[in-house]
């Protein structure tokens, strides 16, 4: 982890308001792990003030690819970075996903922009010889992560809220059919989606009568408004069974069993 001045080597809009920005940095390439993120300064100016956390989407020997969702003033500046521009990047940060050596079949659920760290994870898992199913949800077909960005060995399932592509409904509705098959479940996306994943994979913990207690590992990458990303400002906490934990430092990846969902999302 360090402050890096890195050069943008490619910038492609893969979906509306979503860019894949490649940066050259052998140090980031060498040290980054799936599930980690970087914290990018919007500009040398002080408005917009705070850095923006961006998921590491692809890890290469000579750098990383970042998924940049251009939804606000700060992320729009970063998403507009021209090839050759310099970015002030802090990272890699946070606790990464872990793949148990005995796990062979991995089910992954990505909501919207949350697909980014799962692409890095799926790529690593395929490299280890695992079977991977990646389920992706979006509001409409326009916002569905393009399959050609994925390793071909990854089985791909799609759900859209408006039914314009794939399953008509929430992506979490696709998960139950893969539960028995999978050795481990991974998810990243909006907090209500992550809670739904926890509910499906840990029904007993949600008081569902007669539900089996599953020990299958479930790892969730949480989202929260972030300040320093160094564990200092204590701005990005989520409630867990160990009290408030910092998404930037103690996460973003948490075990589903750790989370306390009450009041986490308004």
């Amino acid at each position, binding site marked *: 982890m360090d402050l890096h001045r890195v050069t943008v080597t490619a910038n492609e809009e893969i979906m509306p308001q979503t860019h894949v920005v490649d940066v050259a940095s052998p140090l980031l390439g060498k040290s980054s792990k799936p599930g980690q993120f970087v914290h990018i300064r919007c500009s040398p100016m002080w408005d917009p003030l705070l850095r923006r956390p961006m998921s590491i989407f692809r890890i290469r020997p000579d750098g990383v690819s970042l998924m940049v969702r251009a939804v606000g003033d700060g992320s729009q500046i970063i998403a507009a970075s021209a090839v050759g521009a310099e970015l002030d990047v802090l990272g890699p940060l946070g606790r990464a996903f872990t793949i148990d050596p005995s796990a062979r079949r991995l089910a992954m659920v990505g909501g919207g922009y949350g697909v980014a760290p799962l692409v890095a994870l799926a790529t690593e898992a395929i490299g280890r010889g695992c079977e991977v199913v990646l389920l992706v949800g979006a509001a409409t077909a326009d916002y569905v992560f393009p399959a050609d960005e994925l390793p071909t060995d990854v089985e791909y399932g799609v759900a859209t809220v408006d039914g314009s592509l794939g399953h008509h409904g929430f992506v979490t509705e696709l998960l139950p059919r893969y539960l028995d098959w999978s050795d481990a479940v991974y998810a990243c996306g909006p907090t209500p989606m992550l809670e739904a994943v926890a509910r499906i994979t840990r029904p007993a913990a949600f008081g569902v009568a007669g539900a089996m207690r599953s020990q299958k590992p479930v790892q969730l990458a949480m989202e929260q408004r972030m*300040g320093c990303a160094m564990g200092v400002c204590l701005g990005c906490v989520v409630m867990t069974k160990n009290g408030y934990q910092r998404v930037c430092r103690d996460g973003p990846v948490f075990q589903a069993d750790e989370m306390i969902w009450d009041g986490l999302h308004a």
Partner: protein
Amino acid sequence: MPEHGVASKTGTATPPNLRVNLAPNNIHGLELSNPVLVASGTFGYGTEYQSLVDIQRIGAICSKGITVRPRAGNPPPRIAETPAGMLNAIGLQNVGLRGVVVEKAPIWERWSVPVIANISGESIAEFEELAGTLDGVPGIAGLEVNISCPNIRDGGRLFADDAGSAAAVTRACRAVSTLPLMVKLSPNVGNIVEIALAVEAAGADALSVANTLLGMLIDVDRRRPYLANRTGGLSGPAVRPVIVRMVYQITQAVSIPVVGVGGVTCTEDALQYVLAGATAVQVGTANFVNPRTATEIVDGLSAYLQQHAIADISELIGAAHPPAARPAVTTPV
């Protein structure tokens, strides 16, 4: 004392003097190698940024606010971005007094950078317990008395809200601790000069001016305040002109050192505070954006003094005051 900033016979200048003493009347003193501190709540317990920042080059580190008992803090969302600033309502999440004494102070003791423990009580008795317990603990160079955190209320009021209770907290801490006391004022008051004078009279060695400005952001989609705590403290460049003005007014009234806190991002910002009368500055929110802001300002101040052939930073303190109000120690430049 060596001469500073004076060209030697070989033509190379000796470095200008950046040393300042924030507690000249205290038996321990609070002498810093330079006037650039990092503000409470923006630098953790000092350890978090060690891998990124040469922390020993900072003037002093003000610790995360410490309370008698550990505190979990407020529910999220706790922070929000605003124009050139941010709101926070962390709620003083911290390891508690014992955690600081047992886990943190032994680390601080090994450092050359002084650590000032920021203490926050919900009653006079709690302030006494905090100040008394920390007195004589190796690794703690001074206390910053937080009478002004806008998130903790005692009977609906802040100690910082009026001169009488601000002075009472200061007196209580003074009575149980020999450590240098820097009292951190709230900007959310009608007459901050009156409170500064009362705190000075009650035995403060220095003032930090100021804590965050109380603010609010409304989420128009949800039609309610964005922060779970509803209100939060505004910090960052947005507040700088307000706090510079307060420092300018307070330093013309008090004779103890004042430390300017609010929106310091660069050397020029720090110089504004010094010229307005501050003996030192604290870098706060800027640490989140560039953790090396404080050490970069240390270098920048040194370069500025050298460039302007000023031997000692003290020559600039209050130089922007009206001529009659400039402190006696100031040499007009």
